């Protein structure tokens, strides 16, 4: 075999691997899946992502749900997937995505360098337009002002009621990774949500911040304490009991 042919094949193989890698990372969900909000005009759909808080992990592209509602003050990102590009693995940097922009409509969401920001409670509309400024499709999402904070296991953030942690019963030496999630009318709300954590008695149980909003609650010694979470003008106390 001619050396140049081998080189060409290696290049082709590496290019293919690169394409698969990129496509794998950006694999689109199929139409109708939960993390895909079909546009009102049927020309495509929208994906939700927000990556500056673990709260958003549940709504990331690899997760399962396009949120029903987003917390006011939260940042998030949206991506439009045209109808013919749904399913399988597609190259999101391909020509069909070039020039497509997503713009907010009305005062409820805004757009800046951080992506979108939920500005005020209401039903917000986001619109995908092509390079000529023509509307391709649009969707809506509810923006709400959170009315409570929930504590959720970091590895099991979901919208199910059972994932919320009402109190902690830990053994000495035990540690759990947890996150704070905004709530509205007893429903978990998407969107980055910054909070401050504190333990009333660090000698019994202490909190250590980790990345992306996760904190580790570590049981130090037998006793009782209260874990306090504060953020967005909201506060929540969670009882912690540590036993041997």
């Amino acid at each position, binding site marked *: 075999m001619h050396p140049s042919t081998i080189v060409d094949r290696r290049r082709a193989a590496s290019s293919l691997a690169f394409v698969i890698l990129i496509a794998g990372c950006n694999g689109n969900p199929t139409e109708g899946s939960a993390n895909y909000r079909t546009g*009102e*005009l049927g*020309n495509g759909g929208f994906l939700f992502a927000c990556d500056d808080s673990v709260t958003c992990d549940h709504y990331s592209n690899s997760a399962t749900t396009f949120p*029903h*509602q987003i917390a006011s003050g939260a940042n998030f990102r949206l991506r439009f997937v045209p109808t013919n590009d749904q399913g399988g693995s597609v190259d999101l940097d391909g020509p069909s995505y070039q020039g497509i922009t997503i713009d907010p*409509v*009305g*005062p*409820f969401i805004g757009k800046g360098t951080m992506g979108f920001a939920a500005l005020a409670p*209401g*039903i*917000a*509309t986001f*619109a995908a*337009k*092509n390079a*000529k*400024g*023509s*509307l*391709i499709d*649009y969707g*809506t999402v*509810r923006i709400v002002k959170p009315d409570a904070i929930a504590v959720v296991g970091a590895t099991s953030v979901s919208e199910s009621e059972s994932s919320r942690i009402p109190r902690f019963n830990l053994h000495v030496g035990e540690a759990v990774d947890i996150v704070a999630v905004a709530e509205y009318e007893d429903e978990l709300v998407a969107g980055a949500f910054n909070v401050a954590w504190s333990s009333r008695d660090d000698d019994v149980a202490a909190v250590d911040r980790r990345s992306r909003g996760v904190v580790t609650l570590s049981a130090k010694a037998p006793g009782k304490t209260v874990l306090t979470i504060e953020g967005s003008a909201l506060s929540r106390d969670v009882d912690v009991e540590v036993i041997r």
Partner: protein
Amino acid sequence: MSRSFDTVRCAVLGALCFIGSVACGPDYDRLELTGQKGSPLGGTVNAQMISIPEGMIVKVHVVPWNDDDEPMRGGARSLDTSILDVWPVVSDRDFAFVANKVGRTSVEFQANGRTVLTVHAEVTPQPEQPAF
């Protein structure tokens, strides 16, 4: 003398032919607003009024017809786009009425580039706790 008379006669004849051809051509007849795709909070776009809740989009198929029953080139534009904007949609003859902020303005509908209808438009506030 007779030569200049012939020139005048030809000019008048030509002008009459031109006026005749224009006068006899198809003219705007009516405007059809169909295929309305409303928002989750509703909204109305018709030839009498436009009313859309703030932050919502309503899509409408806009077709002006001439008196030969042929579709004309349609268009729509808002007199205050900060309140209500009109965007073209990728599908043919569809327009999106985009309610940017609460207020009142007017929308002009066009046929072959000529305004044929002006409709009062208002963007209304969303309800306090909109159902969704």
